[in-house]
């Protein structure tokens, strides 16, 4: 009786070995590429102010979005709200900024600027056209109540994201 039971169990195991797991792999290349066109530089028009505005001696950073498929992506660009590197600061820093379409490769992209959505320090664009779009990001920082920034190097970061819709 024991021998019969063993035979039955082994048969079940053999029939169970026919199951296979077949892997499927795939690579997806992004159809949205973000490229830094121009790195920004803070100008220091007054002791308490740092600005990327060219009239203030700064350089406005520009980022380029290359989209090969229309209406699939959103551009999320955030102007900085803190320094990533700075001397020791003892007072508050008020950040402000603005993101605008600088150049387009297709005329219909000109509507991006009117259709953009702004919240907090982030600006959102629907990339409804295929092609390249240049965005300029203005950044400004005021220290305390007209207080002079301590000497040193100040760095901040602009965040540019391409989100699939």
């Amino acid at each position, binding site marked *: 009786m024991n021998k019969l039971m063993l035979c039955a169990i082994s048969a079940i195991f053999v029939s169970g070995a026919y199951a296979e797991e077949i892997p499927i792999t795939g690579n997806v290349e992004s159809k949205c590429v973000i490229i830094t066109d121009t790195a920004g530089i803070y100008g220091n028009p007054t002791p308490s102010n740092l600005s990327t505005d060219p009239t203030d001696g700064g350089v406005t950073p520009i980022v380029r979005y290359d989209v090969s498929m229309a209406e699939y992506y959103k551009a999320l660009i955030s102007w900085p709200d803190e320094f990533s590197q700075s001397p020791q600061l003892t007072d508050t820093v008020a950040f402000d900024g603005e993101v605008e379409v*600088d150049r387009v490769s297709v005329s219909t992209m000109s509507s991006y600027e009117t259709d953009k959505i702004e919240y907090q320090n982030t600006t959102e664009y629907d990339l409804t056209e295929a092609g390249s779009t240049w965005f300029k990001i203005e950044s400004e920082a005021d220290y305390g109540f007209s207080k002079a920034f301590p000497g040193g190097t100040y760095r901040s970061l602009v965040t540019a994201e391409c989100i699939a819709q």
Partner: protein
Amino acid sequence: MSNVLPAYTGLQVNGVFYRYTTVKDPDTGMIVTVQNEDALNAGQYIFREQDDWSGLPGNTIQKAVLQPYVDQNRWGDGSIQIEGQGEVVDASVIYTYRYDEDCVVSPQNNPSCPGFVMPEIDIPEPTAPIDDIIQDELDRRRVAESDMEQDDIDRKKIKDEKDNGRPMIEVLLGNPNTSVLGGVSQILHDNLVLLDVVPPSYLTELPSTVYEDTITLPDAELLDNVLIRRANYSQELLHERLVDLQYQLGESK
């Protein structure tokens, strides 16, 4: 375009990059056309790109349009044309091009250069009909081959005659050597005999004698032993059986 593109031979335009800013009311219609006339075909354009700004706010556009290496002489005057209401400011058009330095020096440096002229080679015209020329050439070759064969035959004949009239060198050299060798050997032999060095038996001649056979064996019969006889008998039986077999086969038919 002669004042825009350098006057290099073989220059080809492979791209146009333009940039301009439109100033307009978003509600108005405006079409901006950047174009170049086709210098070889009047009324046509070698490059023409339109941007429709109708219903859109003004902005800066930057566009790159690749060209399939169009020859320089095709590029006519360029212009930016505006249809509708609006204004174009800060416009710039940049042409990218390529050229082969060898072609700039001389179009004859490379067959791929525009303006290359295949050099002409002077081949003299035949004075006689071509068939006559071919026949003359064949005759000339035939005569030359015949002369060569005759020369070979004559050369072989002369060689054979020379070989027949010339005595063999080994014969010529052999006779005097044999006589000289014989004389020297005779002198040496005589000296050895005088010196009594040679054993006398060497100088004694043996008599010419015939030694006949003296032993004779009587004829006798050597009988086979039992084994040999048995083997012979069995072979004889086998032979007879085989001989009889052919008749039996004939009867069965």
